[in-house]
C-alpha cells in the first residue's frame, strides 16, 4: 500500500496542534536518530522516537497517537539534551499524550501498580515523575 503524500496530508491540523502545544518545529528534525540511539527505554517502544517524528513530518499522526511509544517515554529528557537540532522529543510526547487524554481515550501502558513497582526498582526520579504525569493526564 503506497502512502499518498500531498501538501494537505503533510500540513495536518493535528500535527500543527502538536507543534503549538510542544513549542517544537517538527521540520527541524533531520533524522539523525540520536534521540533513539540514546533513549534508555527505546527497547520497549513500538516506534522509535525518530520514527515517530518522521511520521509526524509525513502527516501520519494517528499512527503515532496509537503507539505505545508516547506512553513508554519516561520524560528523562536524554533525547532533548542531545538533539543537534534542538528538538525536544519529550515535549512532543507530552503534547501527543495530552491530545490522547483530551480525547478521553485511555490507553495508558503504565498503571498505578506498575508505577509502584518501577519506583521500587531504582527508577530515576524523572522517570517516576513522568509516569505519574501520564497517569494524571
Amino acid at each position, binding site marked *: *500500500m*503506497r*502512502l*499518498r*503524500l*500531498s*501538501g494537505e496530508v*503533510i*500540513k495536518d491540523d493535528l500535527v500543527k496542534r502538536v507543534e503549538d502545544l510542544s513549542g517544537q*518545529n517538527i*521540520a*527541524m528534525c*533531520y*533524522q539523525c536518530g540520536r534521540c533513539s540511539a540514546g533513549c534508555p527505554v527505546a527497547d520497549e517502544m513500538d516506534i522509535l522516537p*525518530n*520514527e515517530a517524528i*518522521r*511520521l509526524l*513530518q*509525513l502527516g*501520519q499522526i494517528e499512527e503515532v497517537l496509537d503507539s505505545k511509544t508516547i506512553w513508554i517515554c519516561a520524560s528523562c529528557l536524554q533525547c532533548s539534551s542531545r538533539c543537534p*537540532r534542538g528538538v525536544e522529543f519529550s515535549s512532543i510526547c507530552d503534547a501527543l499524550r495530552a491530545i490522547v487524554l483530551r480525547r478521553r481515550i485511555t490507553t495508558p501502558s503504565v498503571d498505578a501498580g506498575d508505577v509502584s513497582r518501577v519506583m521500587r526498582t531504582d527508577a530515576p526520579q524523572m522517570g517516576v515523575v513522568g509516569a505519574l504525569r501520564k497517569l494524571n493526564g
Partner: protein
Amino acid sequence: MEHRIGVFVCHCGSNIAGVVDVKRVAEQLADYPGVAYSTDYLYMCSDPGQNMVKDAIKKHSLTGVVVSACSPTLHEATFRRAGAASDLNQYRVEMANIREHCSWVHRGDKEKATEKAIKIIKTMIEKVKQNEALEPISVPMTHRALVVGGGIAGIQAALDIANAGHDVVLVEKSPSVGGHMAQLSETFPTLDCSQCILTPKMVEVSQHPRIRLLTYCEIDDVSGYVGNFKVRIRKKAAYVNRDVCNGCGLCVEKCPRTVASEFEEGLATRKAIYTPFAQAVPNKPVLDRDNCTYFESGKCGICQKICPVNAVDYEQKDEFIEEEVGAIVVATGFDLYPVVNIGEYGGGSIEDVVTSLQFERLLSASGPTGGEVRRPSDGKIPKEVVFLTCVGSRDPENHVSYCSKVCCMYLTKHAMLYKHNVHDGQAYVFYMDVRTGGKGYEEFYQRATEEDDVLYLRGKVSKLFEEDGKVMVWGVDTLTGRKVEIAADLVVLGLAMVPNSTAVELSKKLKIQVSEWGFYSEAHPKLRPVESLAPGFYLAGAAQGPKDIPDAVAQASASASKVCALFSEKEYHREPIVAWIDEDECSGCKVCISVCPYDAIEFDSEKGISRIQEAICEGCGACIAACPSATIQQRNLTDSQLYKMVSAALED
C-alpha cells in the same frame, strides 16, 4: 676523468635505519670504485644534512653525488640545489631510493634489505659516473594566453590573466559569452541574481584592452608546445557582419521563422536570426542557416532587406584565424546528462517533467514565464512540485558513477525559490544523501526545511507517469520504510553533470588527457589540480569535474595564476633529460616519428635524418626503444649507463 663520487646515506629517522644497516652501507660503499667519500646521517634533507653534502662536495672535490634516501619525486630538487650551491652541476646529483624501493617493503629481512640498499646505491653510482653536466633547456615563449570557453570559468581566467598584464584570446563557440551561468535564476546560498553578478564580468571581458574576444568561434587545430602554441580558430559564418552590425535588432524582429530557443532550454522560441538572450555579449545576432527560409528555398531575405547598415551577408563563409599563444586554459564547461536515457522518468516525453536548467528558466525573471513558476503543459501554477536528486548520478550500473556535486544544493535552491513564488505550494525533494559541503550550504539546506517546509524524502523514485493531468511519482521513504506516491503538478530532474559534448574531441586536438567520463584530467588530484599533464595546458571549471560557481571561479583564478607564473620569465625552462639523435648514425627511417606521442620529432629532408625538438620532447623513451639502429639515446640515461647499472645490480 677520475671519478670522485660522494655517497650520502640517510636514516630517515627509523624509516630506513630501522630496517637497513645504514652504517654498514656507508662503510662498505666507501671502498667502491670511484667513491671518494661516504657517510650517513639521521635526516639528509634537513639543513645540517644538506650542508654535509655542500661541504663534502668542496672538501673532497666531488664530481658526482648519490643521495641514498627517499624517492626522487620528493627531494631530488632539494639535493640538486645543494649541488648547484657548491658549483656541482645539478645533473650530477642523483637519488638512490632505498626507502620506498627497499626499507618500506622489506621490513621482514634486515640483512637482505641492507644488501639490496647497497646494490641500489651502486647502480646510481655507476649512473652518476657517466652523467653529463647539463643545463635546463630554454625555449622562447609567447606571452599571450588562449582561453577556450566563455562561461564563468573562462571569463574569470581571461580577466585575471589580462589584469596581470598579459594578452588573452578568449574563444567561445556560441554567439555570446556567459555560459550556463547566464541561464541561472538565482545562486545558492546567497540567492543573488545570477545575471546581475555575471553580466558585469561579461561586459568587462568584451571591453578589456588586453582581451581579444572571439565568439561563435571554435578551435580547429592546435600545434606546437608550451610557450609556443599555434592555434587555428574557425570563425563560424554568422551570415551577419558583426563588425558592421549595430545591434538594432530589426532583423530579429522581422524574421518570420521561429525555432526552439537553446538558451530557454526549449521552453520558448527564438527567431532564425537571433541573439541568444537580452544581455548577450556581443549583442549582435547570428543567423542559424539550418532553420532559415532563405537558405532553404532562396525566398524571404527579409533580414537583409531591412538591415539599415547592410550587415547581413548570405555569402559569408567560415574563416580561419591564426593565433600564437604560450599557454592554454581549457574551460569548456558541462552539459546535463541526456534525459532521453532515463526511460523510467519518461525519457523527456512527459511535458511536466523538466530538467534542472529548464526549471532555472521557469524561475528566472528574464525567462519565458517572466519569473512566475508555470508548468509547460497548460501554464498552470503547480501546487505540488517534486524535485529528484541523483538523476543519472551515482548510478554506475546504468548511467554515471560519480556524484555531480551541485544538484543537492541547486535543487534545495529550486525548492526554496518555488516556495517564495508559490506560498501555498508544497515542495518535495527525493534524495539519497543531502551533500552540503560548502560555506553556508548546510545552513541553506536547513533553512529550506525549517522556513520553507520543503519535505525531504530519503529514497530514489522508481518511476514517473502521467495520470489525470498529474505526474505520478512512485517513491519510497526509507526512513519509515514506506512506499509513497505523490500526484505532482511538476517534477524537476536533477540530472547528472557531464562534460560538454565537445570536450573529448577538443582533448584530441589539444592532446590532453581525459578521465573515464570525459572530464579533463588534472596532473595531480591534490597538489596539481589545475594543470593538465601536458605542459602549458591548464584546466578551469566544470570541464575538469562537476563543480559549482565558487569552485569554478576559484579554479579559474588558480589557472590564471599558473599561467602568470609561467609568463613571469622571459623564456620557458625545462628538464634536459630528453632524447638525442646521433646525426651520423641516423638512417632516416622515421620509425621514431611514428611512435612519438608528442609530435616532438621532425624530419630534416635535406640531411635525410630525424631531429628531436628538445623543447617538445618529454623524455618518455618511446623513440629510443623503437629506433632499429640504437641511434637515439636519452641524455643521462644512455644504453651504456643502463648496462653499467644492470651489471652493478647483478654482480655478487
